[in-house]
């Protein structure tokens, strides 16, 4: 049979070709090359399915395909390293491939409705951007080593810049694009240092295999191996922690974790489908995926794990609170994204590898759904995003409403929607591991507190948008949306409902049913995978041990689930009370001073802007110094010489008898010098 893995590069290249086509010939194609993009992503999707099937068939793939540089090994002092491109297909990447290609496909389709209805000019540019974006993300997913991952990571950043700044003729988007790239760049700086450090330390950056850097690190830590280099007598564990944190910098940037989350809400300046792509499946997911990808390295260093967990938990709560008071539809969703990725980080930090991937999956679907739904609403509202101008759309656009509702329930974590299962498992993992680890427990608490907040702002959004009386003319008579919008919504809506069932761990635990935790089995190489990349392996080398509340495992499961569900419902109920009325009003005033703080996102943007300005001041100072002092010296040298020349020429007085005198004087002086040195007159 033909080997699916041989076609993995095609998965990446198809969207890339669509990028080239749209860029080169887009303006001659119908819809600016949209169909090329759709075809390409569809192709990639099918191939991904096939690849996933092959993996399910018990095979995996880890090949170096291309020597980028240093073939045969170029020296960096003691170590020889090669810089390569390769493909790593294991359950994780196979799953991610499916998710990314699917969401990308749906976004392409949706764009037909969203963009073209706008009578947008730069369509070729748009679809080229989408194509490149998808291609970069897929390249990142299949990357078999850290360097390749970093490269595509950066390309993803570039694409986000291009797409967020798509409407460059307005002042807003370019600025948002710049911010997005700069803030993530700041994170990527640490990431890059980390990559270089990995090369310097292990001489390789492979993710998988006996010679991979997680394996080497593991060996070195338990003494059965050694690393090529650690800086200045630094103890190995410490150094590995540092490396891990450095790489984490990139993750924090891309996955919009605190404190580098500020770019994401601004990124809403981009077209809504792009937001869907960025938040659901690509850019923001990339960070979390990276941690999952090199999880075997992170679990070796407890400190890093704790930091990840804490950042995650904190971000989850922190972002959720900001989502409470936003007025624009997409703003709310933006903060919900930050918050949800916080959950995933919490899971990873808490040792809940499967839980994180699970939430990544479910979130990909319901968040894409929510964004596309929002997109549909925005189409209907003539690109007005203010929820206070909406209301009552429920009856006008039922499809959108019910799908959106499904997504919201998932996001809020209401049983039995997808979000419930994944979020519940995250909290469960954090709890059972956290009982022995106070820092982790803190993360769990914050995660738990975020649950009701999430539910509240989610349904505040739903109610304000769809329920009550229309609060504007456009809301009374919205633009109808067509199949190309409804189609994707339906698909994602159904997924948002069912995805949860692929991993019903609580049910399994409670009822003792075996084999319904499909995702666990999948990620545990139950059907096949690569040695050392299984969730069990991670658990074995990981730092955590489990502890349970009353009633042992089952009891803990039930308690945890009950608590989180209860809190979710609490938030939902509050939202219902406040906003599910004919003509809802602002209740934010009740928050008093906190309201302003929340509106202004805890003044973190101001802080970063302030930092930027201070940097510019320093630069200005440097410039003055450069022009004044350094260049001043250079020019001073010349002017000094010229003045010197001016002095010298004064000798030439023009009077010949003075010449005679000077000449005689000079001769006598010469006589004296030589006489003195030669000692004649003795």
């Amino acid at each position, binding site marked *: 049979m033909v080997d699916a893995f041989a076609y993995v590069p095609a998965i990446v290249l198809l969207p890339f070709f669509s990028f080239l086509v749209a860029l080169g010939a887009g303006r001659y194609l119908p819809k600016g090359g949209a169909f090329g993009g759709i075809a390409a992503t569809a192709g990639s999707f099918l191939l991904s399915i096939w690849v996933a099937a092959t993996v399910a068939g018990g095979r995996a793939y880890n090949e170096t395909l291309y020597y980028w540089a240093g073939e045969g090994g170029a020296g960096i002092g003691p170590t020889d390293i090669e810089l390569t491109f390769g493909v790593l297909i294991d359950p994780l990447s196979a799953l991610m491939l499916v998710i990314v290609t699917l969401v990308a496909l749906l976004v392409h389709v949706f764009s037909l409705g969203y963009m073209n209805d706008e009578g947008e000019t730069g369509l070729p540019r748009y679809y080229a951007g989408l194509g490149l974006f998808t291609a970069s993300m897929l390249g990142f997913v299949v990357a078999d080593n850290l360097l390749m991952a970093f490269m595509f990571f950066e390309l993803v950043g570039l694409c986000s810049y291009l797409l967020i700044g798509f409407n460059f003729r307005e002042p807003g988007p370019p600025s948002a694009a710049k911010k997005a790239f700069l803030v993530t760049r700041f994170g990527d700086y640490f990431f890059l240092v980390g990559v270089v450090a990995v090369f310097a330390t292990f001489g390789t950056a492979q993710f998988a295999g006996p010679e991979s850097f997680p394996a080497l690190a593991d060996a070195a830590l338990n003494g059965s191996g050694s690393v090529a280099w650690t800086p200045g007598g630094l103890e190995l564990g410490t150094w590995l922690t540092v490396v891990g944190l450095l790489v984490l910098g990139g993750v924090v940037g891309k996955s919009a974790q605190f404190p580098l989350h500020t770019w994401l809400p601004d990124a809403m300046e981009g077209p809504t489908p792009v937001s869907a792509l960025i938040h659901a499946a690509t850019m923001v997911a990339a960070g979390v995926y990276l941690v999952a990808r090199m999880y075997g390295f992170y679990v070796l260093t407890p400190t890093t794990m704790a930091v990840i967990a804490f950042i995650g938990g904190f971000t989850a709560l922190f972002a959720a609170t900001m989502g409470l008071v936003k007025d624009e539809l997409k703003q709310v969703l933006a903060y919900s994204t930050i918050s949800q990725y916080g959950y995933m980080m919490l899971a990873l930090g808490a040792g809940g590898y499967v839980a994180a991937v699970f939430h990544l999956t479910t979130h990909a679907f319901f968040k894409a759904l929510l964004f596309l739904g929002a997109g549909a609403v925005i189409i209907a509202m003539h690109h007005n995003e203010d929820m206070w101008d909406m209301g009552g759309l429920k009856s006008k656009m039922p499809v959108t409403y019910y799908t959106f509702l499904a997504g919201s329930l998932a996001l809020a974590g209401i049983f039995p929607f997808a979000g419930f299962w994944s979020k519940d498992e995250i909290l469960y993992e954090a709890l059972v591991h956290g009982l022995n680890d106070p820092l982790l427990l803190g993360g769990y608490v914050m995660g738990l507190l975020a649950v009701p907040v999430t539910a509240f702002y989610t349904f505040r959004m739903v109610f304000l948008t769809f329920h009550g009386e229309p609060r504007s003319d456009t809301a009374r008579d919205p633009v109808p949306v067509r199949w190309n919008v409804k189609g994707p919504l339906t698909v994602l809506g159904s997924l948002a409902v069912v995805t949860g069932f692929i991993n019903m761990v609580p049910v399994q635990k409670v009822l003792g049913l075996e084999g319904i935790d499909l995702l666990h089995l999948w990620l545990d190489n139950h059907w096949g995978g690569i040695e050392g990349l299984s969730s069990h392996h991670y658990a074995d080398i990981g730092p955590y041990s489990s502890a349970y509340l009353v009633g042992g495992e089952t009891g803990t499961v039930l308690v945890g689930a009950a608590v989180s569900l209860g809190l979710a419902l609490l938030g939902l109920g509050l939202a219902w009370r406040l906003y599910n009325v004919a003509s809802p009003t602002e209740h934010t005033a009740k928050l008093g001073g906190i309201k302003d703080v929340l509106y202004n996102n805890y003044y973190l943007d101001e802080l970063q802007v302030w930092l930027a300005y201070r940097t510019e001041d320093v630069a200005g100072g440097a410039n003055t110094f450069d022009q004044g002092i350094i260049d001043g010296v250079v020019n001073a040298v010349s002017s000094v010489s010229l003045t010197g020349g001016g002095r010298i020429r004064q000798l*030439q*007085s*023009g*009077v*010949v008898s003075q010449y005679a*005198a000077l000449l*005689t004087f000079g001769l006598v002086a010469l006589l004296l010098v030589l006489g003195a040195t030669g000692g004649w007159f003795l």
Partner: protein
Amino acid sequence: MTAVASSIPPTWYLLLASAVFCIGLFGVLTRRNVLYFLMSVELMMNAANINFVAFALYYGDLTGQVFALFVIALAAAEVAIGIGIILVLYRNFGTTDVTVPAEMRW
């Protein structure tokens, strides 16, 4: 005569010549009239001649004396040229003061 000349130690000739030379130099430095300037230079040259003649005698070879004659001839030629230049100088500047023509300087 020869006896007399040779009875005088050469050092004295040196001193004499140096004295004459210095007188000439003094004239050069102090006199502003170009003619005096010229004469002073002649004096300096003749100081050299004294040396040549004296030490020709001292060493007993004729080169010095012959050369002295050459020098005298050259000095004459120099004066001739000098006078010519002084003439055009006087035509253009109406003076023989060496310090007056100082239009070109620095």
